[in-house]
């Protein structure tokens, strides 16, 4: 590895802020467009998200994996007195999630192509939402991270209560539940962050930078770490819908419009997992080790519990909502296992689940939009009328149940490999979850797509034109990264090994720290 390569990799680059600003610019343009111009609005939104997608794709392939560490950095001091830095940059941990955000953001615009109610407001909010999520993943400063995290909450609430749908619960209830849960989580998080900040800056030189916070680990005594990690676990845990703080998730997704379900299930809840790794494990390893057994137990309970509940659902979105809770259990147990393999798996699983659930929600969105029902019993035989949609739905289901060839399989396998030695019993129970996942997924597929042709759905038109964009993008990503897993796993592995995470885990493995049990 030559010195110039390292220097080139660590050079300043304005690319990430441009990617961040592109949707904002698009939103600003939309603000000045007349609201009748709904086609133009949609095209502008698509262009804005496309710029971000193109940049993140470029960054994904241009990132130097051998050098590792944060690259495409841009660091500007912002509020010097309290140590806030406007710092952007990505490494192997955040880059897959950045790419995921923009894949889903771009496709979400196309999944909302047929929206005709308050188009202008919808796309402005959608673009703000995408920006917010993107910001959390490229921030290298805790303050900035939290700022973007809070930005995310506002558009979600408005979008659910205006464009949402009322089924088992009212959309107002769903929106409120979603928002309050997010805010509750972030309140706990805020306490933890302030505590951490004070501890880290206790001897002067205050900082919010992730790397710096992690470097000052010896300042955090074990009791402090346990407390702070506990608070974060609650905050981030409810965000990633960890059992038993998951109940916002099915209701929220069911109430939300398609694009919000896609972004929320696809990337937003991954901020929880990302935060737990970036802040929890890397900064507070002793705290993580302390809570790990509890996380593992809750995670595996979540996997089985939600999988079983998904079996009893009648509404399509609820099935996927509970399925998403179940899948996040795998991410949590992988984080709890605290070794490089399992964390590779956790990050990959977030990526894989993101693509899969976005595809699923997108397909369900189209079904609902065309048929005005999500009740599984009312649907059936849709493969007759909508073969393309059926392909997308079927492949999303196959990814969901972890079929080899999809990136979801590789992620699950990596997680199982990483956890089975650390937590044998929870891991085996979790692996048993793949059976029940197959049961509810295949039941939904059978009952929605297959069976005799139903004349009442003969008027449904198959996906065409812009509606095909999410299908094509997600299916391509699922299989490309599933058949050539090194594409994304190589990056993640470089992130885990070069970010200091692997080192932290190694010392943790050797240290004898009493666990919770």
């Amino acid at each position, binding site marked *: 590895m030559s010195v110039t390569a390292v220097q080139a990799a660590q050079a300043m680059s304005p690319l990430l802020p441009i990617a961040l600003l592109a949707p904002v610019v698009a939103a600003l343009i939309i603000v000045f467009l007349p609201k009748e111009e709904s086609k133009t609005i949609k095209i502008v939104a698509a262009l804005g998200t496309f710029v971000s997608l193109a940049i993140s794709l470029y960054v994904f392939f241009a990132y130097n994996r051998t050098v590792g560490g944060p690259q495409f950095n841009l660091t500007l001091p912002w509020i010097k007195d309290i140590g806030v830095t406007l710092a952007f940059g990505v490494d192997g941990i955040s880059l897959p999630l950045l790419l995921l955000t923009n894949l889903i953001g771009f496709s979400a615009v196309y999944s909302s192509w047929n929206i005709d109610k308050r188009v202008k407001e919808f796309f402005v909010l959608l673009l703000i939402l995408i920006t917010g999520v993107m910001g959390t993943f490229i921030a290298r400063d805790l303050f900035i991270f939290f700022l973007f995290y809070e930005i995310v909450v506002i558009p979600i609430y408005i979008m659910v209560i205006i464009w949402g749908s009322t089924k088992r619960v009212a959309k107002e209830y769903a929106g409120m539940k979603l928002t309050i849960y997010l805010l509750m989580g972030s309140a706990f998080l805020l306490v933890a962050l302030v505590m951490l900040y004070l501890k880290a800056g206790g001897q002067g030189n205050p900082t919010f930078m992730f790397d710096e916070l992690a470097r000052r680990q010896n300042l955090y005594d074990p009791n402090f770490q346990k407390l702070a990690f506990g608070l974060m676990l609650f905050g981030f845990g409810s965000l990633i819908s960890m059992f038993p703080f998951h109940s916002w998730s099915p209701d929220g997704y069911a109430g939300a419009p398609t694009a919000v379900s896609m972004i929320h299930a696809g990337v937003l809840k991954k901020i929880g997992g990302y935060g737990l790794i970036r802040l929890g494990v890397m900064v507070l390893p002793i705290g993580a080790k302390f809570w790990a057994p509890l996380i593992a137990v809750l995670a595996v309970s979540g996997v089985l519990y939600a999988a079983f509940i998904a079996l*009893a659902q009648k509404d399509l979105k609820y099935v996927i909502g509970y399925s998403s809770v179940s899948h996040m259990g795998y991410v949590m147990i992988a984080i709890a296992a605290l070794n490089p393999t399992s964390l590779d798996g956790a990050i990959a699983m977030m990526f894989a689940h993101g693509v899969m659930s976005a595809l699923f929600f997108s397909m369900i969105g189209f079904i609902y939009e065309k048929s005005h029902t999500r009740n599984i019993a009312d649907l059936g035989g849709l493969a007759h009328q909508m073969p393309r949609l059926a392909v997308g739905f079927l492949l999303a289901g196959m990814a969901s149940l972890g079929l080899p060839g999809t990136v979801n399989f590789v992620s699950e396998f990596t997680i199982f490999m990483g956890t089975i030695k650390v937590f044998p019993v929870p891991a085996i129970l979790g692996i048993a979850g793949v059976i029940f996942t197959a049961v509810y997924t295949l039941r939904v597929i059978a009952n929605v797509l297959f069976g005799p042709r139903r004349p009442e759905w003969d008027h449904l038109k198959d996906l065409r034109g812009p509606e095909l964009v999410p299908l094509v993008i997600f299916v391509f990503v699922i299989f490309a990264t599933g058949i050539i897993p090194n594409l994304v796993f190589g990056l993640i592995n470089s992130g885990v090994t070069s970010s200091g995470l692997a080192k932290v885990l190694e010392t943790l493995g050797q240290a004898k720290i009493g666990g919770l049990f």
Partner: protein
Amino acid sequence: MFTQMHSLYESAWVIPALPFLSFLLIAFVTKRSKGLSAAISILAILTSLALAIAIVLGVVGSGAEIVEHPAVVNVNWLDIQGLTINFGTLVDPLSTMMLFVVTLVASMVQIYSVGYMHGDRGWSRYFAYQSLFAMSMLGLVISTNLLELFVFWELVGLCSYLLIGFWYHKVSAREAAKKAFITTRVGDFGLLLGILFLYGQFGTLDFAQLAQAMNANLQGLVLAGGVSYITLTTFLLFTGPIGKSGQFPLHVWLPDAMEGPTPVSALIHAATMVVAGVYLVGRMYFMFQHAAPSALEFVAGIGALTAIFAASIAIAQDDIKRILAYSTLSQLGYMMFALGVGALTASMFHLMTHAFFKALMFLGAGSVIHALHEKQNIWDMGGLWKKMPITGWTFFIGVLAISGIPPFAGFWSKDEILAAALHNGHPIIYAVGLFTAFLTAFYMSRLFFVAFMGPEKKENHPHESPYWMTVPLIVLAFFSVVGGLVALPTHNFAFFVRDYVNLNGVVALKEFEPEGLAWGLAGISVLAGLLGIGLAYMTYVRQAIQAEAVVAKFPGVYKLLKNKYYIDEIYLWLIHHIMDGLAKVLYWFDIYIVDGIINGLALITRGSARGLRRMHTGQMQTYALVFFFAVVVIYLVYTLGEGQFAALNPLAMLGGVK
């Protein structure tokens, strides 16, 4: 010579790649053109067949060299910390045999499908699935490691799912597809665990490296209760084959899988995919040798149980495809118990011959069903031999082959299995196998006599199938006749596909020693077959024995067999009452307890807010009143606070001045 051959072996990846290419082409380019889709698919698989034949010839030419040094190529697939997986190709006699069998049967089935699927709306989709299946199955047999094998293992499962549910407008097909997937997944759960345990212990999944590692160290791997790690892993691994190869108690999906088009049943559910489990055990046989003897005894027990259990059900079935399906289960049990008694060679031999004659009979059944416009009940048939001579004759060859009549293929392999069972000290298994052979001959002849002989039915107007369908029948019939003869030359099947031997913890290939046929044992098993055929002849042709009378004598037994021992009913009950019941209970719990607590918290917050709101009345008088009383209380605390109220004194608590 050998280096030349080696470059041929190293291009083995082309064999699965061609059908995959064909799948992509059909899916993305030619799906609108029926002719092109079929042409591409068949062309691809025929080219693969040609390559496979070239490799077979190469292997036969290489002799002992290839037996001891299989040709392996590996490419890295996944490389992260703590997990490195390669994908590659492995050419040894076993995989070569599988390559030949799979490409041969797949190409025959695809050619046959041109006639059978004529006019079907899903034509291109059908050929796309066929190509995808061929790719997956061929990938499976040349895998170099367990994970690669598992990947293709699941992919053939997917193809099976898609092809069983090919006519997705039928509810029965839809349900059968789902059932097949889920049932095999139960087995795959164990297989996956086994793979994880193996990697955890040995840090590799490569077959050759695993074999070496297990030879190197076995001591110190004993888990609690005296069960060794290897034994536990072996049992886990074996659950995969139980599901995939339809062994008891996960056999329930295979008879239902007959909902798929008949060529699919021939290819996937008789000749190739269902034997993947047998193949896996064969591939990992060194591990079974290392494990405690209980592991192989378990394999033998399950196999023998499945063999006799499925054969007994087959007697009481009336649907031509279901009889064949139960027969397949029974024959898979045969292969499995052959492995269990230590006869790897015989098991693989039977796998090959069975693929020929069972594919033949399924395609024959398809030909009949085609001619009779979807009639599948054998009692609706009759006298077909005259009207459909090619189908009739080839089917008859199949019946003789499966009944173990010399010199047909089944005779050689079945005889080797039975001889091995007795020779290796498993007399009970031998007896079960022998009785199963008798049952097999009986129910297959029953099928043949009822459907092909006997009086013609007036309402049927059968006619011989087109050449697209009869030519594959003739080719497969040819192999059903001569397929067993590979046991004859000095460098015979057993020379190439060798048994293993465990010498003090070191498992190695057995030295080849040519063995003659045990004529006495062979005579006994041929007798069993002839007895079965004779009994069926007496019952269904001469009608000397009244089948109805026998049934009337044992109504309970007949009902039990007819209803397949009620296994399906038991499973359904478990699924509907236990699994779905639990799902409903948990959902209730989620809505009313988990969510109830959340909503309760929200209510408390709202309620307390309502209470607190009372205090902000906005009336000056109220505030003044509260203020006054507060002052009084504070004054009291201050003045009386010296003694018992000290703790309440805020200043005292703060350590302030007094």
